[in-house]
């Protein structure tokens, strides 16, 4: 059970790390236009 003292803080850190990754993706414009990839097939060029 003592491992919880390590694992729970670790899981908190992990959550924060995942959020940081998402932040990076978001502010690099990955989610700016979610529909665009679907529409691309309809375009000629």
């Amino acid at each position, binding site marked *: *059970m003592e491992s*919880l*003292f390590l694992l*729970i*803080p670790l*899981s*908190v850190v992990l*959550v924060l790390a*995942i*959020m940081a990754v*998402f*932040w990076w993706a*978001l*502010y690099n*414009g*990955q*989610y*700016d*236009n979610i529909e*665009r990839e679907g*529409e*691309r097939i*309809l*375009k*000629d*060029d």
Partner: protein
Amino acid sequence: MSNPTLIEQPGIAVVAPEQRAQAGGLAGLLGQHRGPLTVDDDFVVLDDPLEQEDFSHAIEVDGRALQESILMVQGMYCPACTETVESALAGRKGVVSVQVHAATRRVTLRWDPAQTLLSALARDVGQTGYRLLPMRQALSVEHRLAETRLLMWRLFVAAFCTMQVMMYSWPFYITEPGEIEPVYDQLLRMANWMLSVPVVMFSSMPFFQSAWRDLKLGRIGMDMPVSVGILVTFIASTGATFDPTGVWGHEIWFDSLTMFVFFLLGGRYLQSRLRDRTAGSLDALMNRLPEQCERQLADASFEIVSLKRLRVGDVLRVQAGQAFPGDATVLGESATVDEALLTGESQPVTRLRGQSVVAGSYNLAGSALVRIDKIGRDTRFGQIVSLMEQASTEKPDLVKLADRIAGPFLILVLLSAGFGAWYWWQIDPALAVPIAVAVLVATCPCALALSTPSAMLASAGALAQRGILVRRLLAFEALCKIDTVVFDKTGTLTQDRVVLREVIVRPGLEREQALRMAWPLASASLHPVSRAIAVQAQPLASNAPNPSDPGSAPVAEPVDLVQERPGSGLVLERAGGGQWRLGSADLCELDEAHLLEQGRSVADAPCAFLCDEHGWAATFVMDEGVRADAPAAVAELREMGFAVHLLSGDRLGAVQRVAQQLGIEQVVAGASPERKLEVVAALQQQGAQIAMVGDGMNDGPVLARAQVSFALGHGAPLTQSQSDFVVQSGRLSELVQTVRQARRTLRILKQNLCWAGGYNASMVPLAIAGYVPPWLAGLGMALSSFLVIGNAMRLSRLPGMPVPDPAAAAAALSVR
């Protein structure tokens, strides 16, 4: 400004490359006519300081005065493209930094105006195959993008923390109190708290901000109960975490708190997506005009100028695939245009020399030479845009009422939450906080506030795509109560142009000869009657050239002189002496009654007379053709249970002929505007609810008097029109469509109100009684808002309407 020479010489004359004129055939164009055709363009417009205001702003870095410009990159779809564009710009003289976003197809460029010109940079990019375009409203789009990102980031933080908080709460769910060793219990609580902090401090910020803003203004807004709920839960749970034996008790509600914020934010995110979509379609409409155009100079060459420098009277060349920048007159032989803007249907329409084209419609084939008649706000297009803006900001009375009662109502909510907390404190203190929070959240009338405007806007948007503009959102309600439809004849049931029905000729004269004689006269005038004759006479005239001058076109013949006498007709001075006249009986010095007796004229239709040196030669009998779709539309209206009336200022004979063709029994003819008003008022006194259908020009007072009014066709200037609905295509079938849509709108609106009202009414007692935990209240609120909006979105498609062409939609999107 950095470049003073440009201010004096805004549109540096550059003749456009020749190949642009011949670019592509018609077939190729129809597929992709919404985008510019080539990249080897001239970019001088980018250097125009007037234009730069739209997409650039001055910044200062390390003491250097720089410009930051946001431009759209056309033709960029993948990360590899990003690199090409970036490397084309980076390292150029004067470029300080460059950032290309593949997803938004935008480039943010910092450059030194002292060292380079934007057009030079754009040309460099153009050589790599991409095109830099000035982004109109780039800054506002950028702003909206930043807002969306922030909201999404808040939502994600809430979502992820909620999931993890749930995990840490799981042990509490499955164990009895005291079963977990205190030290682990405390560890889990701390972890819960750790992850709740970002949710409260960051994700909940919009609620706090808006509540605080309202508070400073002395109001209580919708976000007030929510903010109080979040704060109360967080403070109580924090107290319980760090001082389990203290005044806050032992219970924590981090799971409820985070989930509740997540659901609320989720609802808000979906709402903003929906709103952006409407704003986006409005943007797409407004961005139809080109950024620049080619103006003809005195020496017949062309210069590229920005739209803002355009003046009335300028002669422009509009390339195939481009939109006309203003309402204009066709100077060339003819032009093929797409007026989907007005009619909702993308199909090629031919406009002949002298006819007009509207701003925002596309030139489909070849390059067209036009003279600008109107620009900016005066154009039909400008009026449509301002009308749309106006209608979408209008608040229906119901919403105004909701705004007014919201304040007292929300105070009531706070009080009842306080009461709930106090009551439960005495029974079970552990339940007081969650119940108070649940009441606060459950009573929030968000869905109620959304139900009406969302339905009406969605409906108006759908109609606008079809070319039907809604001036007053409330007219939907009135339209559903209508039982009588009153038509004005001219221009509504009949075509707004006349056609030649028959030609009565002098003995010894052929019909064709008469038409050939009339051609030089009729072709010189734009009067509807002249046009009707000219249309018939044109093929004859070109087959057999005028004997006096075989080579040239009859109009341009220098020796014959045609004079127009406004209001009566045309006079042609023959080169060889003598006079031909075309027009009213007076002009031809004829006695109309006498002609009638001889069977040389008719009483029930407008006539034009032609006379030559020998007197009367021919009578052209005109027919106001009944619109092709009128019989079906009238029949359908009657089938739907409407009484149909015909009200006209025209002669009885003509009106009756139209009424007979359409099967309308109630007819009033020869009515002056005052008489029309009387008739409508009399009908209303008998309890009739009237929809008046007119052309929007002559029927102002009557249109205003009727409960609902329609203006058909695009004759009248929109801004002056009194009508509630404007049917731009002039198709009568749209009338039926609009009535159906209004009925659907009202039905969905009622569903929305019922649902939202019922939801709030049933949730409050349940919450006070303690049956609704805060997270469920949050979920219920988000879901009911979403349901209301989703239901309203059903209105954004008209039934029986062809699904919009996805390729065209995508093409329209790609322009943005």
